């Protein structure tokens, strides 16, 4: 049995999310999980698929954040194939911000 096959799927998802938590939006200084930009993490055998979005289409870091996400996932899950997909539906809204992220960003919670 190979090393990766022994990993429970939940462990892989958790490691993926932990790794994605290290990807910071360079404008806001917050990680992409707290910002609600990571929509889904799916593990199928050796394949890890991540659906993520950006705060808006045409975001200045549209080329940076997904690439950084793929890089940290590859580093964290070296025995898996990683696919990061940028999706636009449903659109991101500020309601997806975590309470901690809202607090860090300022004072607008309504």
């Amino acid at each position, binding site marked *: 049995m190979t090393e990766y096959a022994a990993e429970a799927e939940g462990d892989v998802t958790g490691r993926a999310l932990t790794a994605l938590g290290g990807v910071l939006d*360079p404008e806001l200084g917050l990680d992409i999980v707290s910002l609600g930009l990571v929509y889904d993490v799916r593990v199928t055998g050796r394949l890890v698929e991540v659906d993520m979005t950006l705060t808006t289409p045409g975001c200045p870091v549209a080329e940076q954040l997904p690439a950084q996400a793929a890089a940290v996932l590859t580093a964290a899950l070296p025995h898996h194939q990683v696919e990061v997909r*940028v999706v636009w539906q449903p659109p991101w809204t500020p309601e997806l911000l975590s309470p901690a992220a809202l607090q860090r960003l300022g004072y607008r919670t309504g």
Partner: protein
Amino acid sequence: MELRQPPGSGMTGSPRPPVAGAGSAGPLGPAAAPPAWVPLSFLAAAGAGLIGGGFGVWFAADRLAESPTHPGAVSAVHVAVLAFLTVGVLGALHQFAPVVGRRPLRSTRAAGVTVGAMVATAWLLPSGFAHGPDWLVPAAGVLGLATVILAAWNLSGPLSSKVGGLPLWGLRISGGYLVVTVAFGAVYALDREFGWFPLLSHRVLAHAHLGLLGWLGVTYVAVAEKLWPMFLLAHRPRARSGLMAVASLASGTAVAATGLLFAVPVVAWLGALVVGVGLGAHLVSLAGCVRHRRRRLEVLHGYLFASAGFVVVAATLAAVAAWPGLVSTPLRVQLVAAEVAALVGWLGLAVLGHAHKIVPFIAYSALRARGVTSSSTGEPLMFAHLFSVRLAWLGLVLGGAGFAAVVWGLAGGHPDVIAAGGAAVATAGVVVTANLAGGPRRGAGRPPASERHAAPPPSRQVTVGSPGASP
């Protein structure tokens, strides 16, 4: 750590087969955005243009106060509008349109030619106005026309994209205004040689307002509809004000310029009223974004609020100057000159404010591509590391005070105040340019040795869906 899932997405985090077509738009590589040198070359040249424009106003202060159509005054105004505003806005467009339209420029080489030719036009034309030789003005006018036609062709690639919405629609219109404005300018420049028609002040004003409102104004108003909500994380329930701003400013400018060109006050007034509606809607849009923001205000918004003040001043001065019988003819000339300066202040502060967002993000992307991931203090690299916020505020104070002094001096006929304003604007140009140009060197660290020559792992893949694609 857990996912906050969007309502109605049906996402569970459980294994699920990928839907075909979700990534059909292809790799999300750096294909859309141009190389960093393209926008940065324009913006660096615009910084020099702001400094030159400020000094030009300083040197020409007497002429500006006595007769705003004096060649020395016209020269200073053209440095400000061409070398600063037009070059800067063209640079921003060469970055913004491909990113928002998700389609690259037609030619990077053409963009390079545009930078060089536009900068040449922007300095040769005012030089010709100021001290000749006579052939220089028409030659620079023709060069400018050829350059903007090249730029329009190049930008038509991303601007023909079906995504991008209102901002791209506005940019298509403003691009048309750019060509029309420079075509007017070229005809006027040739007219100086051939004397086809008298270059009366109302015809000059038609040209000025086509450029300031149609080209630069519509561009700014349209781009703001994308940038403001993004920078403020503001999701407005409705954004009708943005549509009204772009539509009214675009249509009203054409009517107002026609009225000015043919000296038909009723038509000019009608157009001006529509322009006023557009500018008012633009301010309502700004207020809406601020109201629905999810983050603190920052230095950009200081620039935006000061900029908004200038557009209100410009509208007020225009109304007073154009109101029949309200002011004497000499005072009307002063007020109209002040109105034009206020419009330059509106656009100039907006350009400076947004440059503090645009330049750091371009620099960030370029640094990341070189493997730089941390700041000089060892923290993860952020935009905020790439410029000094204190210097940004200083730029705002100097720029705002400078433009205000120029407007005040022109309205009141005070050459000393105009000169002081020009000096302050030039100093603002030095501060902002040095801050943004030197920021990456000060704030960014060195790439780790392990990342300098690292090849991307073969097993990672990044794809992007179309705006309507659902996972």
